[in-house]
């Protein structure tokens, strides 16, 4: 037995936000941002992800342990990427 935990209106607003961010990413692709390009793209993607997780996936009303489970995968992924890059980025440095 359960009751809706998040209202329909919130879902609609979330969708609107997501589609807005989608337009934003595409627009960003045509701006001359240079090296900032990737960072900007990822920032938008992370915002989208947070919108989906917090509202669609009900993190807003979930217990702390769920927040933990939701974030731990991304933490490990960051470790994987950062430490691998630490190798590739410093290979040509001279001893």
């Amino acid at each position, binding site marked *: 037995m359960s009751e809706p935990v998040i209202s329909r209106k919130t879902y609609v607003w979330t969708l609107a936000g997501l589609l807005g961010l989608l337009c934003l990413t595409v627009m960003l692709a045509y701006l001359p941002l240079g090296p900032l390009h990737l960072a900007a793209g990822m920032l938008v993607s992370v915002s989208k992800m947070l919108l989906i997780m917090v509202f669609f996936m009900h993190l807003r009303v979930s217990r702390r*342990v769920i927040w933990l489970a939701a974030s*731990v*995968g991304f933490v*490990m992924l960051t*470790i*994987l990427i950062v*430490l*691998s890059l*630490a*190798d*590739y*980025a*410093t*290979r040509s*440095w001279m*001893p």
Partner: protein
Amino acid sequence: MTTYLEKHSWGSWLLTRDHKRIGILYLYVILFFFVIASVAAGLMRLELLTPAGDLVTSDTYNKLFTLHGVLMVWFFLVPSIPAVLGNFLLPLMIGARDVAFPKLNLTSWYIFVAGGLCALWALLHGGVDTGWTFYTPYSSTYANTHVIVMAAAIFVAGFSSIVTGLNFMVTIHTMRAPGMGWFRLPLFVWSLYATSLIMVLATPVLAITLALLVVERLWGVGIFDPHLGGDPVLFQHLFWFYSHPAVYIMILPGMGVISELITCFARKKIFGYNFIAFSSMAIAMLGFLVWGHHMFVSSQSIYAGMVFSLLSFLVSIPSAIKVFNWTATLYKGSIVFQTPMLYALGFIGLFTIGGMTGLILASLGVDVHVHDTYFVVAHFHYIMVGGMVLAFLGGLHYWWPKITGRMYPELMGKLAAVLGFVGFNFTFFPQFIMGYMGMPRRYHAYPPEFQVFHVLSTAGASILACGYLLPMGYFIWSLRYGRKATANPWDATGLEWQTPSPPPTDNFNAQPVVTTGPYEYDAEEAERRAKIGLLPQTPGGAS
């Protein structure tokens, strides 16, 4: 109340959702693979008796060590304590009727068996010769053995491991009995939690890496292919991102078992409960940061090498904390030397040596020399055989009465423990010496100056073999002829001992309520009771 062993039909076993039975199903399968992998080890040791490489061909030898490594790691040691003892004990220890997802638990056993069948298929059709590490581009392009099937086998078995880990984590979070707070959990449960965390977070990376390897083999082009500008060393990064944490899958549960054994047979509250519990979590987390120490001479950037070396030194601190706390637990205890205790003491010594030689490997200047020599082989056998296998045997002896309702023969037990310990050191200590002298690993023929060490090692392996065969023999014997065990033959605390041996299907006759910590032992009290004969030197059976 009927015990969980009551029903005998095949169906009642193969369709069971009882975590205790599933644990036993796992026991059968991993023992099967342990025997195959051990025979491979035996053949390898025989081959290495002479420098010329005359017993088996080099191809056969390469297939033997690959088989040995793959089966020992993924089909024996990774599931050993977690899937057998963990499955059996976890719900009992936290006072639950079963794990959170019993059907999933059975499924994971079937997945494991499916993986095992793939591995057997590969073995029967000629084997695989890449080493357990599957380095590209050898495995992706040059090897012409059954790499794809073996990779599939590990991929599948990996999912079984993920499912088990997931199940354990959810069980520990949600199924604890009333009063069973996080800091009343037995340390074995903490170690299982840490292990599950690694299983859940590291194994998927192995799965995708092997999948990429398979796709590259099938498709002819791929991500590790130097012709596309791909870097074969990237495979090593991805592989060790799993496989270093995985070595902690292969030691943390053992550490948990040791915490249980030490307290029970020293009749002491564990020293530094919180520190041991947190150090398990610290090992699980820090373990993800050190994988590059397997790649110091792989052409990895030397700066990355330094970072990984530093982190490897740091990851040893939580292990140190555990070792010191176990030692301190013995202080002012009332120590008896039952078989499980012998294994536990052996564990501490051998793990210390294995771990400290890990530090030697983590030291950049030395690893350049000893990488891929027998020094490394000795290091990991000290931890995996001297550590985890001893812990597994110790745990099996300790909980044997609970699992089967029978006692094993104590004298034989002690004999096997001593034999194993002596044989083990004979087998693997010489490998440290020849490793530092420069004997490379995965060599089927070698320069004659190393022969004396190889002969010693093979001789030791024959003693070690007896140390394994003996328990297999008397365990089977005890099923029929062993003394009947009481509910609590060791007079241990712990919820699993509060229910009959073997336990009823639903684990407890009444919902247990927990009011104290896990290790309420009292050495003085034990001495008093021993004096008046209430606590016999040889505990155990109903007379």
